[in-house]
């Protein structure tokens, strides 16, 4: 089954890290991605630009509105994802638990819709 691991973290936290720690943080993600690939479960994954770059589009009564900013203002922001292919939820949760994001934010695990 394919699962999306959605990473939510305080993006300001990362921005305020001293360079050495920020580098260590990046390296942890690189190693994690490598481990996913090595296990043959990695389908995809990307980091996103901060929410300051976000634009939201909604059509109400036929009129399209374009708004500056993310869909919702929250303490922790959606900042990146991994897509993995594993046998079941327990395997997905085991991978989520290894994701560096669990130490500075949360990882939401969702199965992909299958039709």
């Amino acid at each position, binding site marked *: 089954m394919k699962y999306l691991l959605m990473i939510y973290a305080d993006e300001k936290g990362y921005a305020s890290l001293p360079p050495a720690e920020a580098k260590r943080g990046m390296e942890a993600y690189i190693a994690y991605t490598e481990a996913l690939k090595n296990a043959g479960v990695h389908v995809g994954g990307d980091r996103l630009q901060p929410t300051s770059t976000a634009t939201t589009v909604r059509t109400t009564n036929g009129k399209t509105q374009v708004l500056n900013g993310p869909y919702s203002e929250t303490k922790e922001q959606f900042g990146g994802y991994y897509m993995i292919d594993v046998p079941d*939820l327990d395997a*997905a949760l085991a991978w989520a638990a290894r994701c560096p994001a669990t130490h500075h934010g949360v990882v939401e695990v969702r199965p992909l819709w299958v039709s």
Partner: protein
Amino acid sequence: MGELTDARATADAVARRSYGKLVAFLAARTRDVAGAEDALSDAFASALAEWPANGSPANPEAWLLTVARRKMIDGSRRRRTGDAVADQLLILMDELDDPVDEKAAAIPDNRLALMFACAHPAIDAGIRAPLILQAVMGLDAATIASAFLMAPAAMGQRLVRAKKKIRDAGIPFRIPEREELSERLDAVLEAIYAVFAEGWADAAGTDVARRDLAEEGIFLGRLVTELLPGEPEALGLVALMLHAEARRRARRDSRGEYVPLAEQDTSLWDMAMIDQAEALLHEASRGGAIGRYQLEAALQSAHVHRRLTNAANWAHVVQLYDALFAMSASPVVAINRALAVAEMREPEAALAALDEVAADSRLVEYQPYWAARAALLTKTGAHAEARRAYDVAIGLERDDAVRRFLQQRQSALPA
């Protein structure tokens, strides 16, 4: 007519003996608990139509499984299209190619794996016990709802949602690996204890649905100890439930009045059940891993010993409560500990200990807290305060017999 009765008796017996086993087996690979339950109920209907004419089959479980698997395949063909269904069909067809040997009696027992799926951390904790009752024991939503004091429609919806989550989120039917077993087993045991506790709450045994739950709880607990032998906490839980169940008949007198443990007629206790509980507790202690249920069973054991031997053992009881409190920090444990302290002629110390937990806002609505407070205040001679505490306790109680008991204690206070 006789054939129909025979068929029905056979079907009932199979349902009692093997319902959970059949559901677990049918749902193991597709994880579709609802689909398995529907197919099985169709298979039971077919059995009642066919068995009276042709006689009950030699292996009714295998017969039901074969029919239910065909129904599941028809069901998935009807319901959905697309790749996922194709996959599911392949799984089901694959199983058909490997037909159940009608002569061999053994269907693999996946009930424990089913229980682990039902009590998975991804399933809302409040619905785990009802889900196990439905999937493993075959109880219907209305019966479960009445036992858990919930509206049947709401219970039905929550059960449907939970089963959908097992299927769609990919919750596996598997006994967890060693390193996570104890945590995951705790969730299963907690759900089983919740089943038992709902049954236990109906002390008078007037509500049949709830009285049965105590038995179902013990059955499920024993099932875990059979399928996962040697787990100290599972053994401890069964010991705890048997200890409590053994005293059922003594909890009310012939007029239906509440009888506290200290005044129970011990000749009404089921000594064979107490012996079993003690043996299980002993077996658990050999596992060398103490836990909540073993401690609670040990407390039951201590209370039973005190009553049977008339030898006060309150210091030991307080020690056990201390160990339990260190593990759970539960205010409920603190209340019981305070009552034990009071038995050692230290009501003031007990009252002070009770004040320490009083900050927990949940206790405002917790009857045993107010009853304990009232009892301790009575002992210290603070009669006016005791009267007020009894008022609150009486107002919070649901059980008529307990309410009358508290009212008697209150009116026995010196004016």
